[in-house]
């Protein structure tokens, strides 16, 4: 770990100003990802700007029934929030499926979204990795690919995004609110996180010094149901092989609309738009769900080590949709 300067930010504006002025500065939130990476020697900031105590810890109900969630709220507090549990169970479920009780007590809303890939090669500075060291090559391509992407990968990088919460946020059409060098802006989570392309070193579309201050979740109609299912190698405390976040509204045995995101399959939460299109107006039957899942997974590009993710995602997505529509919403 390279020595670094530390300062605690007194305000959002002060944090952003400090960071913008120093290309070697990074924000410190809960630390569960950044400190890990500092110790692994895969990131070398010259300055940490601690934003963990900024007063961004509220969950605010918006006039339209949506929620504005503070960026430094801890994951465990968010998962336990009554409004999240009742209105957006997919978000609670995704959070509770991630990490451990201790980590959820420290990790923040923004930090969770911005956590970096668990690709073994990215985490090991003794191996080439285009994300860590652009141009050095991708060790995973010829190596261990079991955890890697089946959608949206590039020749440069086949890593996947590790967050569960981000998958739920993508399915909920959630938006992050940021303050940056150019003022405040709003970025949908699906656009905040990006595919690797030829710039795998960039996980997201934030500018240097741009700070996430909140996550906004738009309201769901009363009839919509949402859920999250994660498939993993252990019963708990393991990253997803495949996960599914789905929000669906049915009416009289027909799917009105569905929003679906898959986790563990791409460099960002993968919005299953093909499946969503196939479901709109389709009968709410297992046959429709399977076809929708097939429509999505037909576009997958698996590698030898992760081909199992295709049937796993198809089967899991079908089961999630069946479960969510098994009975009429209350």
């Amino acid at each position, binding site marked *: 770990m390279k*020595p670094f300067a*530390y300062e605690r930010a007194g305000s959002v504006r002060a944090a952003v100003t400090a960071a913008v002025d120093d290309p070697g500065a990074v924000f*410190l939130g809960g*630390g*569960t990802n950044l400190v890990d990476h*500092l110790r692994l020697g895969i990131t070398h900031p010259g300055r940490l700007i601690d934003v963990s105590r900024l007063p961004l810890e509220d969950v605010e109900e918006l006039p339209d029934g949506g929620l504005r969630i503070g960026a430094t709220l801890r994951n465990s507090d968010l*998962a*336990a929030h009554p409004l999240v*549990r009742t209105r957006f169970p997919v978000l609670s479920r995704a959070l509770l499926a991630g990490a451990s009780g201790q980590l959820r007590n420290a990790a923040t809303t923004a930090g969770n979204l911005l956590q970096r890939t668990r690709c073994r090669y990215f985490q090991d500075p003794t191996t080439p990795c285009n994300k860590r060291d652009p141009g050095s090559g991708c060790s995973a391509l010829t190596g261990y690919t079991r955890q890697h992407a089946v959608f949206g990968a590039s020749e440069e990088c086949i890593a996947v995004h590790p967050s569960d919460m981000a998958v739920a946020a993508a399915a909920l059409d959630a938006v992050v609110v940021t303050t940056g060098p150019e003022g405040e802006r709003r970025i949908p989570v699906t656009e905040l996180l990006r595919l690797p392309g030829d710039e795998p070193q960039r996980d997201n579309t934030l500018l240097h010094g741009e700070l996430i201050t909140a996550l906004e979740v738009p309201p769901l109609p009363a009839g919509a149901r949402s859920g999250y299912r994660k498939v993993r190698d252990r019963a708990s405390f393991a990253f997803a092989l495949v996960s599914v976040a789905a929000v669906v509204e049915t009416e009289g045995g027909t799917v009105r609309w569905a929003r679906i995101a898959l986790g563990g399959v791409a460099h960002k939460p993968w919005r299953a738009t093909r499946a969503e299109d196939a479901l709109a107006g389709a009968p709410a039957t297992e046959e429709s769900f399977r076809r929708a899942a097939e429509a999505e997974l037909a576009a997958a590009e698996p590698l030898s080590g992760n081909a199992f993710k295709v049937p796993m995602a198809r089967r899991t997505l079908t089961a999630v949709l069946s479960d969510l529509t098994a009975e009429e919403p209350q």
Partner: protein
Amino acid sequence: MDAHVTLRVDGEERSLTVDTRTSLLDALRDRLGVTSPKKGCDHGQCGSCTVLLDGRRVVSCLALTVSHDGAEVTTAAGLPGPDGRLHPLQQAFWDHDAFQCGYCTPGQICSAAGMLEEADAGRPSHATADLDPAARTPLTDDEIRERMSGNICRCGAYVNIVAAIREVGDVSEVTER
């Protein structure tokens, strides 16, 4: 680069100058001589370093000391009462032989203490069937197992760990003893 911090560790105020890189775990173990929290992985993957930080269970290996100036830290060494009597969780772990080598144990016990408070406060877990805040979730074995899954025990004492925590399960306010 150094920074000066003050912590309250197991009820005692401790001031020290640390490298900004020093984890809370290393500050406790190497600087303050509080070796109850253990270093098992140093990456938040095993839970051996779990302490109660301002009353909540966290892994101290991923906490930077400098970021927690003024914090209250409770380790398993600080759980026994002033008379030296073991905390009910410690007693139950001993009675149920809920450890073998003992290296993960202080972290397990701090985690259990924090976990029981969380459960008592009605916080849900991955094992909770009904997320309705009005629903009262009993602390079943499956709930204990899920909530304790951030603490790895390689000796394989989980069966006894669950039994020990089950026995203490209805103790509330455990961290305030």
